[in-house]
């Protein structure tokens, strides 16, 4: 065992175990995406692949600030938040590969899936839509006087939608227990944040809604945790909505097919030096919060878990076509088979 040189007291009320845990979730997110990249290249991923490289810190840190019973809704780059809330790599792999055993039985893609018991509500593609929906979940918490909190993610792009505005405004007026996390990663597809808003900072919108606003370094997982934790506390105690702006950067394209031609030269490279995992690891080491064997143990665990998940699902079948028609309504239980299929026999 290597014993640390010195140990600084852990920040933000976190224990050493939790600090290592944050590393685990970030590493799991990144490694899972790396596995997905190679599956995508092999043609095993049916649709597009979306990366959160360099943004794992803001997803993990913010979701880690929630308690069991709280519910979050992710956007496309919040794989890490989903994992923290209990979604498994096996489920995610199956979703991307449209397996019959996936949580949506092959109907929906990537991280569009839910489990309200575990505390995550998958998004739909139309951006901003989950803000009013999560306001409704927070409304339920308020109406039933449960000390639970909702958290919804938006990007710098999604904040431009009408649905975002209506949802956050409604939540603000109702003083709902909702945290709205804006992941400001600089771009919405090719559009830089300065073409989304004339506000200097996205968090400057908070006073306009009459809610609290706070901004933090999204590539600092501990700082992210800390500001979100405070927003969650405020929401839980009846203090209403907080807009949390987390500053980060999307190092990969919008999706795997995007060549990022619109990014100025040098920008991506500059952000490589501000990697949330590297930064957290460096602190774990220099502050003496984790030992080398601790870190190696996490890495090995992540590898083991991903190997097992992949081995389990790689060769699983697509859903059977006969399942396509069920479940549009509670009643009737299935849509009819069209006459031309019956005519074909």
């Amino acid at each position, binding site marked *: 065992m290597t014993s640390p040189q010195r140990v600084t007291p852990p920040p933000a009320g976190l224990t050493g175990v939790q600090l290592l845990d944050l590393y685990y979730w970030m590493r799991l997110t990144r490694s899972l995406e790396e596995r997905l990249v190679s599956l995508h290249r092999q043609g095993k991923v049916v649709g597009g692949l979306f990366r959160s490289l360099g943004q794992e810190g803001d997803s993990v840190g913010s979701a880690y600030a929630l308690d069991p019973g709280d519910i979050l809704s992710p956007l496309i780059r919040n794989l890490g938040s989903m994992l923290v809330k209990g979604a498994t790599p096996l489920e995610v792999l199956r979703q991307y590969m*449209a397996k*019959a055993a996936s949580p949506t039985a092959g109907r929906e893609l990537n991280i569009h899936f839910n489990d309200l018991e575990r505390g995550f509500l998958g998004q739909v593609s*139309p951006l901003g839509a989950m803000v009013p929906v999560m306001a409704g979940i927070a409304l339920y918490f308020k109406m039933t006087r449960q000390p639970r909190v909702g958290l919804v993610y938006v990007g710098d792009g999604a904040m431009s939608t009408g649905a975002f505005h209506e949802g956050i405004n409604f939540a603000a007026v109702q003083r709902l227990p909702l945290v709205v996390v804006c992941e400001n990663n600089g771009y919405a597809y*090719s559009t830089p944040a300065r073409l989304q808003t004339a506000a200097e900072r996205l968090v400057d919108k908070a006073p306009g809604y009459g809610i609290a606003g706070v901004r933090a370094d999204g590539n600092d997982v501990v700082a992210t945790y800390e500001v979100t934790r405070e927003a969650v506390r405020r929401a839980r105690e009846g203090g209403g909505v907080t807009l949390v702006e987390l500053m980060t950067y999307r190092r990969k394209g919008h999706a795997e097919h995007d060549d990022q031609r619109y990014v100025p030269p040098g920008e991506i490279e500059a952000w490589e030096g501000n990697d949330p995992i590297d930064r957290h690891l460096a602190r774990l080491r220099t502050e003496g919060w984790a030992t080398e064997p601790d870190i190696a143990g996490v890495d090995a665990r992540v590898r083991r878990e991903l190997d097992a998940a992949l081995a389990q699902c790689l060769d699983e079948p697509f859903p059977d076509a006969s399942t*396509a028609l069920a479940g549009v309504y509670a009643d009737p239980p299935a849509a009819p088979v069209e006459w*031309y299929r019956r005519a074909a026999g």
Partner: protein
Amino acid sequence: MTETTYLEAIRQGIWEEMERDDRVFLIGEDIGALGGPFRVTEGMQARFGAERVIDTPISEQAIVGAAAGAAHMGLRPVCEMQFIDFIACAYDMLTNYVATARYRAGLRTPLVVRGPSGGYVRGGPFHSQNPEAAFLHTPGLKIVCPATARDAKGLIKAAIRDEDPVLFFEHKYLYRRVKEELGDGEEILTPIGQARIARGGTDLTIVTWSAMVWKALEAAERLAVEDGLSVEVLDLRSLLPLDEAAIVASVRKTSRVLVAHEDTRTGGVAGEIIARINELAFEWLDAPARRVAAHDVPLPYAPTLEDFVLPQTDDLVAACRWLATY
């Protein structure tokens, strides 16, 4: 001469109209430096400048609403929906504001809303939709759905020149799969509201549009070879206004008609077309007019499910055989 893809044809059509008329401008998400996710507007910002190729925030209502205002003042906006599924976010603007403007307020609103529609691409429920039925029920809008590269070009140009708002639903499955030679220097304009006989025939008519035209042509070929049937394929090209005369003429000729579309059945456009056939050509029918459409479910992601839900060439063949032997 080189062949032009369906995608390139749309791009050329927009480009030519931008060159021809400086009132034409483009507005949408990621259409500038990126050229849109499919590159339909590639190179346009470099050529025409950021004032005429405007990258917007993610705000479909603002895109369509601002286009309407600019159109009232005499400009000719062409709006891009990044995927046509998100036209739903501008539904209020299009149906309550844009579509009613001329009738209720005497306002001219010549604008185009275009974007990639359609399935067969494993896009899942939100990147595969065909929203024509949602807008067919709205007097004041026009709807066009090209199937060929020639019509993609001819209809986008006609749409831009039209005095009224036009929804231009381009099919992403066709973008790079369909190509043809388009005469150099030839001005291609496809009149809105006119159907096209994609294949002549005497025994049976398939009325369809967009990507389904190609499946209908495949089916017609198979039925000719395997069954000796002469199947006419009528490519509507425009859904609003609908070319009733062309539909009726074909039905009078063949007396058996199948209406096929990719969108779901209930409330789909086929219902309207069959009602018109019933009203205008009932005496000529030797069999009930029938429709082939997608099953009534949201479009699923997995290949096995998507292939089951959407109509395939085999389905058109089976339906035609049923009609032919009725």
